[in-house]
């Protein structure tokens, strides 16, 4: 008969570690991301 080592048990806990925001909220805290279209590597001479 096999023998299995069982995991240590403790009382379950929940932790609240963060928030949920619509992506539109990003712009409120970090305006001006300055996207630019075109070859990124060639723009740097690579």
């Amino acid at each position, binding site marked *: 008969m096999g023998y299995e080592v069982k995991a240590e048990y403790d009382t379950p806990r929940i932790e609240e570690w*963060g928030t949920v925001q619509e992506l539109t909220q990003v712009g409120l805290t970090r305006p*001006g991301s300055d996207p630019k279209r075109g070859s990124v590597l060639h723009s740097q001479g690579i």
Partner: protein
Amino acid sequence: MPPVTSGPGLTSLKTFTIGPDLIPVGYSAVVAGDPVDQLDALGRALVASPEWPPDVTATISADPGPVLLLTGRFSDEDDMQLATLLDELIHTRIRYVDYPEVETVAERLATALRSEIPDLDDWSFAAVPRGGLIVLGILSYLLDLAPSRIVALDAPVDSLVVIDDCSLSGARIQTALSSLKADRAAVGTLYSVPAIGAALRSRTELVTFVSGEDLADTAPARYGTEHERWLARWHQRGDYLWVGTTDHLVFPWNEPDIGLWNETEGRLKLAWRLIPPERCLKNRTFSAHEATLRHFVRAAGPIRQGQGVVDLPIGDELVVVDLAGSRTLTLTGTAAAMWISIMAEGTTAGAAAALAVAYEVDVVDLERDIDDFTDRLSGEGLISFGLRNDDQPS
């Protein structure tokens, strides 16, 4: 059971939601179907981006409504990517050019080349890798080019037409032109902005610069009163041939780069991609982060996730996103195992039996803890009950 506690703020988890209202204009030409299909496609595009952070998870959920969740511990650079993504989703029209349209625009380019270059039959042709090779292959049939007229960019020929699929900044063609040994050169692209052709002709002795279709500069409308300052910022950052924005032109083989400016490093970086792999060859080459895409399906119950509650694993944690409550929670160790067992089994007894196999604990104690746990979760709105196994109506 202890109350919900707050974790350390420095490493706080965030979830950003992308709903159907952020699906960009023109995306239905990329992915037909309902918003869930389109958000699914956007999620698959994001995780196919080489710059996608491997510790951020993209989750598609149709419950309670179509939504794409981006969950993780975002770095400053990730925040810049998120801001750029938002900017693109809001302001950019996707212009997906399928193969039939490529043929139509290539025919226009062939006509324009014949019109602009009367002695075209005496010219050789070379392609800017890689998209230019595809266009030159098509043009070789439309213009009935003998194979001997298709040469390398640095071939020592008298007259050379340089072909590319598009020119959105001019940088790639400018680099290609610097390697030419031909006496005369012309440029042909499927799509470009007229100002790029004008700028190239002012710097090099081009016979002509023609395109199958001209693209408009959308930057004045996009940036409004900020446009001049936006232009000035970019001209300070480098010697760019042309600075502007266009529709997001996408070919079946390539989604052109979107660059974002990293102020700290003082250089352009690649932004996340927008086109799913099945609609763009280039986006099929990077699959290392595929596992960070998840599709959430609410458990069958009777005990299951509450309305607007999405669970997903990140590393060793089980993350619970409470959309209605605007919070992201984490469960570790026993709590994570308990949540997973409850969702898989749907009942206290079933979950207790499953957990008793893995943990050194009495089943009766387990059932009591599971009941306490589910009562607490229910109170927090994180789970909902059907009929509890131990609470049958009499």
